[in-house]
C-alpha cells in the first residue's frame, strides 16, 4: 500500500513554486490542487507508478522508432533463429539476445520486444479513449441524475443498475462478434479498435456515474449552492461553476482507477479473439497465442503477462496515490 502521509509534515513543507508565483507575497494561501500535489509528491509509490505510466505511453507513441533500433518490425519473421525441429527459439530465455532482448515467438519467430511495443499502442489507445468515453457519459449522466433528481434520477439510476447487472464480457464478446467484416464504413483493425473502445466505454460509464451522482446529491444541499441559487444563478451556472469544480478530484481519481480495468478488459477481449486480429500485435493476443505453448516456450507467455501486470499495477498505484492526496480521509 501507499506510504502513510504525515499531515503535519505537509503543512510545514515549503512550496517554492507557489511562493515564486505569488510575486513577492511571503504568506500565500495554497489552493487545494497545490496541497494535493505537495502530498502526492511525497508519495514515492504513486510517483513510481506515474513514471512507469509515462514510460509506457512513450513506448506506445514511439514504438516504430524504438523497434527500428532494437528488435525490428513486429511482423518480421526470423525463422532462421528457431530450432528447425521443435520450432522454438534456440538459446536460453526464449532466444533472448542483444538483437532480440525479450526473445522470439515460437513457430513464427517474430520479435517479442517489438510486438510488446506495438501492443502497447493498442492497449493504451483503447484504454484511454474508452475511459474518456465512459467519463464523459458518466459525468454528464451522473450530474444530471444527482442535480435534477425526480424521475430523471430514477430513470438514470435504473439504467445504471441494468448495466451493472449485465455480464459485461459476454455482451462485449457478442457485440464484437456480431460486427464482423465491415460495419459503419469501417473494416479490419480500425473497425475492431473502434468497437473495442465503444463497447468498453459504453459498459463502464455507470461506475463513474454512480460516484458523480452521489457526490452531486450531497453537494447540491450545501450552503454555497444554496447561496448561488438565492442570488439567482441558473442551473447551468450552478452545475458548471459550483458543482463540477468540486467534482474534479473524485472524477480524476476514479478515471485513473478505471484505466487499468479497461486495459485488463481490452486484454481479455483480445485474448478471447474479439480484439485486433493477427498479424497486428496486442498483449492479450500474444498471451492467447502463448497459451498452448506454455510448456516449451514459457518466455512467450511471461513477457506479455508481466507487461500487463506492471502497467495495470502502475495505474492502480497512481490512482490510489491520487485518492490519498486529494482526500486525506480515505487512508
Amino acid at each position: 500500500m501507499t506510504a502513510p502521509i504525515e499531515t503535519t509534515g505537509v503543512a510545514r513543507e515549503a512550496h517554492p513554486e507557489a511562493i515564486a508565483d505569488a510575486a513577492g507575497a511571503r504568506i500565500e494561501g495554497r489552493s487545494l490542487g497545490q496541497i494535493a500535489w505537495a502530498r502526492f509528491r511525497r508519495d514515492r509509490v504513486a510517483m513510481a507508478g506515474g513514471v512507469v505510466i509515462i514510460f509506457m505511453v512513450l513506448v506506445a507513441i514511439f514504438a516504430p522508432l524504438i523497434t527500428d533500433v532494437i528488435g525490428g518490425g513486429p511482423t518480421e519473421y526470423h525463422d532462421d533463429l528457431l530450432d528447425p525441429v521443435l520450432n522454438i527459439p534456440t538459446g536460453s530465455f526464449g532466444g533472448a539476445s542483444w538483437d532480440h532482448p525479450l526473445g522470439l515467438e515460437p513457430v513464427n519467430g517474430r520479435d517479442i520486444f517489438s510486438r510488446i511495443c506495438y501492443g502497447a499502442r493498442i492497449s493504451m489507445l483503447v484504454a484511454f479513449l474508452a475511459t474518456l468515453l465512459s467519463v464523459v457519459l458518466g459525468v454528464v449522466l451522473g450530474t444530471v441524475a444527482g442535480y435534477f433528481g425526480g424521475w430523471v434520477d430514477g430513470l438514470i439510476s435504473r439504467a445504471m443498475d441494468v448495466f451493472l447487472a449485465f455480464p459485461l464480457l459476454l455482451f462485449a464478446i457478442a457485440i464484437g462478434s456480431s460486427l464482423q467484416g465491415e460495419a459503419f464504413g469501417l473494416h479490419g483493425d480500425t473497425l475492431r479498435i473502434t468497437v473495442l473502445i465503444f463497447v468498453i466505454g459504453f459498459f463502464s460509464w455507470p461506475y463513474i456515474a454512480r460516484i458523480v451522482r452521489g457526490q452531486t446529491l450531497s453537494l447540491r444541499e450545501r450552503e454555497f449552492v444554496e447561496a448561488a441559487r438565492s442570488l439567482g444563478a441558473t442551473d447551468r451556472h450552478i452545475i458548471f461553476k459550483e458543482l463540477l469544480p468540486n467534482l474534479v478530484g473524485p472524477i480524476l481519481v476514479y478515471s485513473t482507477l478505471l484505466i487499468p480495468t479497461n486495459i485488463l478488459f481490452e486484454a481479455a477481449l483480445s485474448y478471447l479473439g474479439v480484439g485486433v486480429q493477427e498479424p497486428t500485435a496486442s498483449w492479450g493476443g500474444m498471451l492467447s497465442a502463448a497459451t498452448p505453448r506454455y510448456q516449451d516456450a514459457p518466455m512467450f507467455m511471461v513477457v506479455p503477462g508481466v507487461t500487463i501486470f506492471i502497467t495495470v499495477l502502475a495505474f492502480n498505484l497512481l490512482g490510489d496515490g491520487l485518492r490519498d492526496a486529494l482526500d486525506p480521509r480515505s487512508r
Partner: protein
Amino acid sequence: MIFYLLRRLAGAVVLLLIVTMAVFAIFFLIPRLGGATSDQLAARYVGKSPTPAAIEQVKHSLGLDKSVPVQYGRFVKGIVAGKDYDTGVRKVHCAPPCLGFSFRNNLEVWPRLQDRIPVTLSLAAGAAVIWLLAGVSIGVISALKRGSLWDRFSMGFALAGVSLPPFFTGLVALALFSYQWPIFKGVHYVPFLDNPASWAWNLVLPWLTLAFLYAALYARLTRAGMLETMSEDYIRTARAKGLRERDVIVKHGLRAALTPILTIFGMDVGLLLGGAILTEQVYSLNGVGKFAVEAIGQQDLPEVLGVTMIAAIFVILANLVVDLLYAVVDPRVRT
C-alpha cells in the same frame, strides 16, 4: 417482506425483458445500423457456404425481411413458444426454451448448452465460496491490525491480485503446478456425481485462479468498510456497555460492513461469468464460457446468442438470490 419479494420479482421480470431487447439489438439492430443487409445478416446464420435458398429460408424464419418490432416479437416468441427450423434436409422442431438452432452444427443450441452448465456452475460456485471467505477474512484482519506487517503484506498482495489478468495467473499456475511440479496433472472436468474427490481435485487450480482476482478485490473493500464501521459511535457504545470484543467485531462491526460487500457480490456475479470464460479458456474446461469462445471462433451466431441469453438469465436469477440474502442481513430493506 412479501411486498419486498414481489417487488424484486417484478424487477427481475422487467430486467429479463430489457435483456432480451439488448440481445436482440446486439445481434440484429446494431449490425443493421452498421450497414449489413438482411441477406448478409441471414448468411451469418447459415452454414459455411450458404446457398441462396438457405439464406432466403433463414431470412424468412428469423423474419429479417419484416419490420423491427415484428422481428423482436418473433425473437421472443421463439424463445418462449419454440420454433420450427428447416435445414433443407430435415425439419426440426426446437422445443421451448428455444435458444436457437445452430445451422453450422445442425443442432439445437439449448441441449448442447445444458451439458456445459454444470461445469461453469461448479467453477463459479467453488470460486465464490473461496473468494468470499478468503477476501472477507483477510480484509477484517487487516482492518483490525491496521498498519501491521500482516496488513501491509496482504494489502500489497491484494493490489497485485487486482492487477493480474486471470488468464495469466491461470497460465502461470498451470506451468508451475501442473507441468513443473505435477501436483495437479492434466486438469479436466470430472462430474461431481462420478467422483466427488476427483471433481474437487481437478477444480482446485481453476477455483484458485478465479478466486484470486476477486479475493483481492474483496479484501480491499472489506478492509475499507471495516475501518469505517469500527470508527462509528455505536461501536464505542457497544464497547462501553461491556460487550466482549469478539461480539463487538462480529455482531456490530462486521455485520454492518458486510452489507455493501453483499451488494457488490450481487453485481460481481454478473462479472463472474466473464472471469469464468477466461478461466475455462486457460484450463480448457468445457463450460459455458468455452462454448461461447468456440462459437465465436466458428462464427456461429445462434450459439453466441444462446449463451448470451443464458448468461443474462443466470445473472438475473443470481441477483434475485442476493436480494433475498440482503433482506436477511439488513433488516432495513424489508419494507
